[in-house]
Every structure is written in C-alpha cells, then in structure tokens.
C-alpha cells in the first residue's frame, strides 16, 4: 500500500498535479479550501504494534481513530490530547496532520507532544522514517513533531508512533456560576495550584471544571473548588462541536492566546476552553476586526474562507516555512494552499 502511495506521489510530482490527502474527510472544512486530486489514505490501516507497558502505540495513517481509541480503552489507556473526530470516519493520519487537541490540551499537551515517530512519504515519493517508538530520542531534528498540524503539506504521514497514558482512575465534573472575568481568574488560579484539573470551559455564565486522577485527589480537589457536580458534563459535545454554541450560520473563530488575556469584547457569542487559552467566537465581525483583537485567530468554520484560515506569518518565519516546504515537496504538489495560499 505504501508503495502505491509512493508511486502516486512520484507520478503527481512528475506531472505537477496537486494531490490532496484524505482519510475520512471529517476535517475537510479545516484550513483553506482543499484542492487537488484526492489520495485516499484509508486503505493503509491497522495497528502495527501496541505495547501497553511501553506506553506506545504504532498505527497506520488510515486507522480509524475510534477503533484505535477503543483498542487503547481495552487496556485502560488513552490518547491524552483527546483529539476531536468531527465525524465517524476520522483517521489517525488526519488527526496528526490537523494537529488539533481537545479539552485536555492545557493540562496534558498537544498532539505534537505525544508524537514519537513517523513514517512519511515526501513529495518525491520517498519513504522516510523519523523519531521512533521510544519516549526519548534526540537523534536528528524532530521532524515527527513538525508534522503535527502541517496539514499534509510536507508529506503523507503513513504511520505514526504515539505515547499513550493510563486512563485516570476517577473523574468528575463540577459546575459553578461565574462571569467571564471571574471564570478567567479562577481557571488561571486553579492551574497554578496542585489540583488535578484536566479541563475547563466557560459559556454564558457557567464554568465547568473536570477533575481527573486518583480518587482521593479528585475528592479533595472537588471540596476545594466547590460548585455542583454537573449532571451532564459537556466535554464530548465541546470536543466534537455538537454543543449548541457551535450551531448557527456565523463564522466560527478559534482564538489562541495567553490564558490570562482579558476578555476580548468581540461582538457575537463566545465559549472559553483550555483554562482561558482558547476562545471560540461565533461572530459576523470582519476578519480584520477579529485579527486586530487577537492576532492568532483561525477562521475555523466558515462558508467563505477568502480571509485566509490562518493568521499571517512574520516574514522570516514565512521564508523558513517556504524553504521547508521546498525541501519536503520540491514540486509543490502536496495539499497546496491548505495551510497558506502561497505554498
């Protein structure tokens, strides 16, 4: 199967025909509008190796993310970055290429924090291997982590090894009443205390806090934080964006900023996650207005993405990006324009 991918990429490079890597297509909406001939990754599926006691799983790109998570669950482990699926067909390859993490991001880390190694087919159709299946590895530049969030523009992630962790023994969600400013202050204050907070979210006057860990720690923390035990924890609906906040026709902005940043005051509706470091805004305000208020604003979901999905890069940074792109994909055929219009 990999040979197949290699051949297709080689041919596309020769003919200068853009290719678009696609698994389940659950993240087609993300980034700039995809273009190019579809190369379906789903035929290259399956877990290659899973050693629970080594805390490492290695799987092929087309592996169903749900099946992978179920397999981990059978051994009482999980992907700590809690990736969103955005649909039934999400694959591991898409998960890493998108580099999106879920509610646990602020406490556990991002996709790249758990990527240990990858097999990559580059823009010349070469099969390359970086990193490995061990926790600590500083041989060579860390190309595997670079691939997380690269949206398939540097190559086809054919296989990946990820660090996994044991599931928390106990988990509970609390709900408190709070204004936006109170919620931001509380979220940051808790994060600076030795409390097992694994997720936070604020929306319309309600602050949700999830505690995960050993039972005594969760119990003690719940007593300190107060509030009521939430009957229906919102985490799944937030992660998969099935929460009512995400409905409606206005564009959805994903704003990444320092967790202590003051309320943005943008028009429209807002939902806060990641201890204050991630702010979702549903607004019809112009891209200029949003990016003026918050430089790192991603136009996440919108019917019209003419404003560019990602905020612009500084010139030196942009030059390095283009040089890296040229190194991995000299013909410029891999998911062109998906990340930035000019590469």
């Amino acid at each position: 199967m990999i040979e197949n991918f290699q051949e297709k990429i080689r041919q596309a490079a020769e003919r200068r025909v853009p290719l678009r890597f696609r698994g389940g297509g659950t993240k087609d909406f993300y980034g700039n509008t995809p273009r190019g001939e579809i190369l379906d990754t789903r035929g290259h599926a399956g877990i290659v190796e899973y050693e629970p006691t080594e805390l490492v799983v290695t799987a092929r790109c087309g592996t169903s993310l749900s099946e992978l998570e179920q397999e981990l669950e059978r051994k009482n482990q999980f992907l700590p970055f809690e990736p969103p699926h955005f649909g039934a067909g999400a694959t591991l390859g898409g998960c890493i290429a998108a580099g999106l993490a879920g509610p646990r991001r602020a406490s556990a880390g991002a996709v790249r924090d758990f990527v240990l190694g990858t097999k990559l087919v580059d823009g010349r159709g070469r099969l390359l291997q970086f990193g490995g299946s061990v926790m600590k590895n500083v041989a060579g530049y860390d190309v595997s982590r670079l691939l997380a969030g690269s949206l398939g523009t540097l190559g086809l992630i054919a296989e990946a090894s990820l660090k996994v962790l044991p599931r928390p023994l106990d988990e509970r969600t609390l709900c408190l009443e709070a204004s936006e400013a109170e919620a931001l202050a509380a979220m940051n204050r808790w994060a600076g205390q030795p409390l097992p907070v694994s997720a936070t979210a604020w929306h319309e006057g309600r602050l949700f806090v999830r505690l995960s860990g050993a039972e005594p720690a969760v119990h003690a923390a719940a007593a300190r934080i107060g509030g009521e035990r939430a009957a229906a924890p919102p985490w799944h609906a937030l992660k998969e964006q099935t929460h009512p906040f995400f409905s409606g026709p206005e564009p959805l902005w994903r704003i990444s900023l320092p967790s202590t940043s003051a309320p943005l005051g943008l028009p429209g509706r807002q939902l806060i996650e990641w201890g204050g470091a991630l702010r979702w805004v549903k607004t019809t305000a112009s891209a200029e207005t949003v990016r003026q208020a918050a430089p790192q604003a991603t136009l996440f979901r919108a019917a019209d993405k003419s404003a560019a999905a990602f905020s612009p890069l500084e010139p030196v940074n942009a030059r390095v990006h283009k040089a890296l792109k040229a190194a991995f994909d000299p013909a410029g055929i891999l998911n062109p324009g998906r990340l930035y219009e000019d590469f």
Partner: protein
Amino acid sequence: MGSRLPVVNALRGFLPARAVLHEEEDTRPYECDGLTAYRQLPMVVALPETEEQVQQVLKTCSSLKIPVVPRGAGTGLSGGALPPGDGVLLSMAKFMRVLRVDPLARVAVVQPGVRNAVISELAAPHGLYYAPDPSSQIACTIGGNVAENSGGVHCLKYGLTVHNVLGLRGFTIAGEPIVLGGEALDAPGYDLLALAVGSEGMLVVVTEVTVKLLPKPQTARVIMASFAEVEKAGDAVAKIIAAGIIPAGLEMMDRPATRAVEQFVGAGYDLEAAAILLCESDGTSEEVDDEIARMKAVLQGAGATRMTVSRDEAERLRFWSGRKAAFPAVGRISPDYYCMDGTIPRKRLGEVLTFIAGLEKKYGLRCPNVFHAGDGNLHPLILFDANHPDELERTERFAGEVLEKCIEVGGTITGEHGVGVEKINQMCVQFRADELEIFHAVKHAFDPAGLLNPGKAVPSLARCAEYGRMRVHGGQLPHPDLPRF
C-alpha cells in the same frame, strides 16, 4: 585556518575589548564542553551582553563567512559546543537575567544563560517550579537545555524540555530576528518550536526562552526497591505501568553503579541487590499514600527483595542524591569515564544489559549502568584510563557497539545528550541517506550558508560513505539489509 585579526577587529567594532577573546590563555577554557575527549581551541570567543550585540556578531560572521558555535555553560556531554578552530565561539554566559515570572499565567521568561535550577528557585515562592531536571541542573543553562532537549529523572510524567518550553526568541545566523511559539498554546503554521528544541544550536541562536511553570506537588515520597536480578527490576517497571501508574520518577541503577555512588554520597542504597529501583510518587498527601501503597504491592509481586519508603523530605532527597551524583561518583572510582545515552524499548533491557556485560569482557573495561527506567533511556558508563594508550580507542569501539545495539533493538543512539560530534558516525547507521538529506535541507532552511554550529549532529553523506566502508572492512556490519551509500 582563516585570519584571526580581521574577525577580532570587526567584533571589537561593537563589543568591548574584554568581550572578544583571542589569546590562547583566554580561549583555552572554551576548548571543550562536558565531553572532554574532544578539544579544539576557538579562533575567537565572543561574549555579547545584549540582543543587539548577538545580532551584530551573527551579521559580522555571516558576512565574513566564518562559522559560529553557540555555548551555554559547557556542560553538554556530546561535544555540541566543541568550538570552531576557524570561527567564533559565541558564549551566551552573560545572558543571565530572569525577565519575568508571572505566577498567574505560570510562565517565566528568561535569558538563555540562566541556570536550570534558578528558574525553579525563583518560582518557588509562588508554589511553582520548572519541571525538567537534568542531573547537571545546578550548572547547565536553559539555553543549552533547549539546544539539547534535555530530560531528567521526572520526564516520564512531566515531559522533556520540548514539552515545557512555550516560546523562543532569537536570531537566524544572518542576524534576522525570529520568534517561535509564544505564550499562546498554538502558533500558526508549522511547529518550528518543536524543530528548534533539540536542534543542537544549529538552526537559531536563542536569546530568550519562555518556559511553562507547574504547580509544585504538595508532597513526594520515593520507594527504594531491591532486586536480585536486573531483569526482574526491568519487569517490575513494566508491571507498574501495566497497573496504570505513571510514577513521578522511575530510575534503575545496577550494583556496580550503586557501589560506586554509595562510597561517594552515602545515599543508603542496598549494595547487595543486583539492581535497585527508585519509584517516586508526587501529589497531594492522600494521593501519594494511595499510589505508594499500590506501587509497593506491584513491586512485592514482581519479586522485590527489600523496600524502603522515604519517611521525610530529607530522606527522599538522600535517596535521589545518589542517582543525581552517579556521574561524578563514577568519576571518582575511575580516572576517566565515558557516558552513553541510548534509549531502548524497555522490554529489551535484559538483552541489552547482557550484551553490555559481554562487551565488558571483550574490551576488558568495566561499565556500570544507570537507567531512566520509565522511559527506556540507558546511561552505561564505561570506565577507562586515557593515559593507557589504547583505552580511549577501546572505549569508543565499546560505545559504538552499544549504540548500534540500541538501534538494532528499535531504539535510538541518544535519548537526551544529543549527537554533537560524539555520535555522528552512528547517525549513519540510524538514518538512511534520504533522511539525512532532509535533515540537511531543514538546516538549510534556517542557515543556507551552513555557518551555525557546522559539522555537528548530522553527518555529511560523504562521511557516512567513509564510515560505511570502514565498518564493512572491519567485517562487522550489523544491518546488511539497510541501503548504504
């Protein structure tokens, strides 16, 4: 060698005379880093104090087309800061200021010459600390930690430098300012921060580091467990993980290592055990009591012959003192030692240790082992005497065989010390030509002229071809299936 005088004069155009060293007596202290077997006098040493001066040094060297090697405290163990004989050693030692500690946002912004341990000291009044704790933390600088992606004894639970650095500011070799990452958790575009961390000072010169601070756990306790066989200790580690526990620290030392350490620090280790494990739990006191009880049960079931749990902080620190002092302790029982840094899948531990025992006989050299057991990172310490004509050469061959064994079992030649100049030949074994070519292209994207710390970490294809011929000639090529060039 190029001409020194024009470089000295150009640098003195904007640096005070005391910040440009070129007399041998002044440059001698910079001739090596922690890997003392490799030495080279730098042509010139520059000691800038401001970002502008760093920028000017880089612009000057770029225009004169001479190499620049950045250096922190010089504690690195792979020769990453080995100076250029024909260029400028850029010491960042004067960048010692802590620019900001923000307890609410839980970040510290520091200059690269700030020592690792200082960050935690300054964060302590706020109940916070900086998690990565390499053994050299009292001396090593955060800039060097970034260059090497340093780990420590708590990284299974709290991660490496790459997991704890939020952002970097610095310059490319051309002197262009560059910012990677930042206080926001996601930056747009490629994750260049992940690429820069662990790049051994070959992509950018860092002038400012933003690190994440974590709440200091309320309490911590450590179990010292003895085992009659090294393999049993390895199995015990797997059983702890299988029980769903991620200890804050999980370290192993074999008997030669504990015996070397004990006479030096008196940590209270069991010297009869073939191996000891140190298993630490941290958190609230309820949580720690609960986890210690569960770990004890697992260790008991795994055949521990003796277990001692630290009763107080002083005892906990004493148990750790031996592990943290392992390298200097070994330095006292042998005229010289050579520290290795391979990482292996933990399940292959028994096989690798048996292999190392075989090499001790083959080369007639002793080799105690300390091991970050939780994450599979081995530090075999080969004892030798450089005054014996062939011992260094035997040591290098011994080490080369160990590193290639690490690759063979699915591991890597370096877990946290870096490739530097030391393991550059083994890079030819771990990576194929196409992969090395990508590494060179990554370097080229930041440093087209190849002037920043050249010749380290990534071997040239020509060098690999030469190494390949040498190894084939020696008749000991372990991977005939790998493509050669």
